[in-house]
C-alpha cells in the first residue's frame, strides 16, 4: 500500500484531511438545512426520505467513480486520482488535465505509463488542481447575484418560472439522452461502449423501462420506500442488463453507429 512515493504515508495523510474537510462541510450544511426544513413545516419523514433516497442513489455512481481511479492509477498511483475525484474533480476533466501535464513534462506514453519522477508527479498535481479551481473563485462573487435574479423572476411570474425550471432540467437530461443516441466517443481509440451504439441505447431504454415500471407499481401501492428506491433500482437493473447483453451477445454489444 505504501510501496512507492505516489502512495506514501504523506499522500494518505492528505487524502484523510480531504475526506474530513468534505464530510465536515456536508455535515454542517445538512444540520442547518434540517433545522430550516423543520421550521418551514417540512415533515421529518420527507427530510429522511431525501437523505435515504440520495444515499442509495449515490451508491452505484460512486462505485463508477472509484473504478475510474483505476484508469489514472497506472500513471499516478491511487492517492492523487482519489484526491482529485473527491474534490472538484470529474473523470473527463481529470484525465484530460493529467494527459496535458504529462505531455508538458515530456512524457509521451500518456496515462498508461507510470510516473517515476517526483518532480513530474508534483507538476501534474499543480496542473490538475489549478485547472479546476476557477469555479471556487467565481462562485463567492457571482452566486448571490444569480440566485437573486432567479428569485425575482420567480416572484414576478411563477407559472412561467415553473415551466422554465422544468425546461432547464429537461435540457440537461436531453443533452445526455442525445449523447446516448448520437454522441461520438471521447477517446481517439475505438473503445467499445464509448460512442453511441447498442450499449448506450440498452442503458437508456432499460433504465427508462424499469423506472416506468416502478412508477406504475407505486401508483397502485403508494409506498414511500418504492419512491425512494425507484431510481437507484432502475439504474442498477439497467447496468445488469448492459452486463448481460455484453456477456451473452458480444457481437451485437459491439455495434456502434458513432465512433
Amino acid at each position, binding site marked *: 500500500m505504501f510501496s512507492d512515493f505516489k502512495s506514501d504515508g504523506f499522500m494518505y495523510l492528505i487524502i484523510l484531511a480531504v475526506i474530513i474537510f468534505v464530510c465536515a462541510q456536508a455535515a454542517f450544511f*445538512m444540520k442547518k438545512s434540517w433545522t430550516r*426544513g423543520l421550521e418551514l413545516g417540512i415533515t421529518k419523514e420527507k427530510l429522511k426520505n431525501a437523505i435515504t433516497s440520495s444515499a442509495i442513489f449515490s451508491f452505484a455512481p460512486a462505485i463508477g467513480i472509484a473504478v475510474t481511479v483505476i484508469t489514472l492509477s497506472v500513471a499516478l498511483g491511487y492517492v492523487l486520482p482519489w484526491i482529485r475525484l473527491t474534490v472538484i474533480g470529474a473523470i473527463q476533466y481529470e484525465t484530460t488535465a493529467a494527459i496535458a501535464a504529462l505531455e508538458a513534462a515530456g512524457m509521451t506514453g500518456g496515462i498508461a505509463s507510470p510516473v517515476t519522477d517526483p518532480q513530474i508527479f508534483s507538476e501534474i498535481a499543480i496542473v490538475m488542481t489549478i485547472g479546476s479551481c476557477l469555479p471556487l473563485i467565481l462562485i463567492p462573487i457571482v452566486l448571490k447575484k444569480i440566485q437573486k435574479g432567479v428569485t425575482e423572476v420567480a416572484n414576478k411570474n411563477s407559472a412561467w418560472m415553473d415551466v422554465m425550471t422544468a425546461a432547464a432540467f429537461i435540457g440537461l437530461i436531453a443533452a445526455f439522452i442525445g449523447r446516448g443516441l*448520437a454522441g461520438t466517443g471521447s477517446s481517439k481509440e475505438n473503445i467499445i461502449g464509448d460512442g453511441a451504439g447498442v450499449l448506450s441505447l440498452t442503458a437508456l431504454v432499460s433504465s427508462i423501462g424499469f423506472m416506468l415500471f416502478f412508477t406504475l407499481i407505486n401508483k397502485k401501492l403508494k409506498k414511500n420506500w418504492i419512491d425512494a428506491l425507484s431510481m437507484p433500482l432502475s439504474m442498477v437493473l*439497467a447496468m445488469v442488463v448492459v452486463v448481460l447483453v455484453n456477456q451473452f451477445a458480444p457481437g451485437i454489444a459491439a455495434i456502434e453507429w458513432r465512433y
Partner: protein
Amino acid sequence: MKTYMDKVHTWGRIWIIAALIFFLSIPVAICLHFGITPRMDVVGKGLASIAFFFATGIIEVIAYSPMLGAGGTYLSFVTGNIMNLKMPCALNALENCKVKANTEEGEVITTIAICSSIIVTTIVIAVFVIIFALNPNFSKLMSSEAFAPAFQQVTYTIFGSLAATYFVKHWKISIFPIAAVTVLLLFVDPGIGVLIPVGVVLSMLGAHIMFKLKKV
C-alpha cells in the same frame, strides 16, 4: 435581519474560500514533501493545454447554479462530479419530496440530498480505492471486460431513469430539445461540457415559445 438565504451565502462563501485555500495548498505540500521546485514552463504549458477548462468553469457556474440552489452550488462545486451525480441526485430528491425548485423548501431538500450524496460518495470511493490498493486482482475484475461496460454506461442509466420521470410529466416541452440535440450531434459533437448549456438554452427557448402560445 438576515434571512436564511443570506446566511446560506455567508456560510457557503466561508466554506468555499476555505476549500480553495486548502485545495491549492495540496500541491504546495506535495512539492515541499518531495523537496521540489516546480518548473514554471512545464506547469504553464500544461495549464495552457487545458485553458478551455476555465471557459467551461464559467459556463457551469451560470448554467448549474439556478438548478442546484445556493447551498447545493456551494457544496457541489467543492466536491465535483456535478452532472453525473449531484445534479441528478438533487432532481431525484425534488421529485420524491414533491417540492418545487427555486423555493426555500426546494433549497432545503436539494441541499440535504447533496449533503447525503457527498458523504456516501466519499465513503464508497474511499472503501473501494483502499480495496483496489490492497487487492490488485479486485481492481482488475472491476475494470475487466465483464464489468467495465456497466460503469461506462452508468451516466446513461442515471439520465434514462430521470428522463422517465421528467419526460412523462412534461412530454410537450421534451420532444424539441431531445430532437434538436440529437440532430446537432449528427453534424458536430462539441463534448458534454458545451452540449449541456446548448441543450438547456434550446429547451428553455422551446418551452418559452410554447408558454407564450399557451400550449403548456
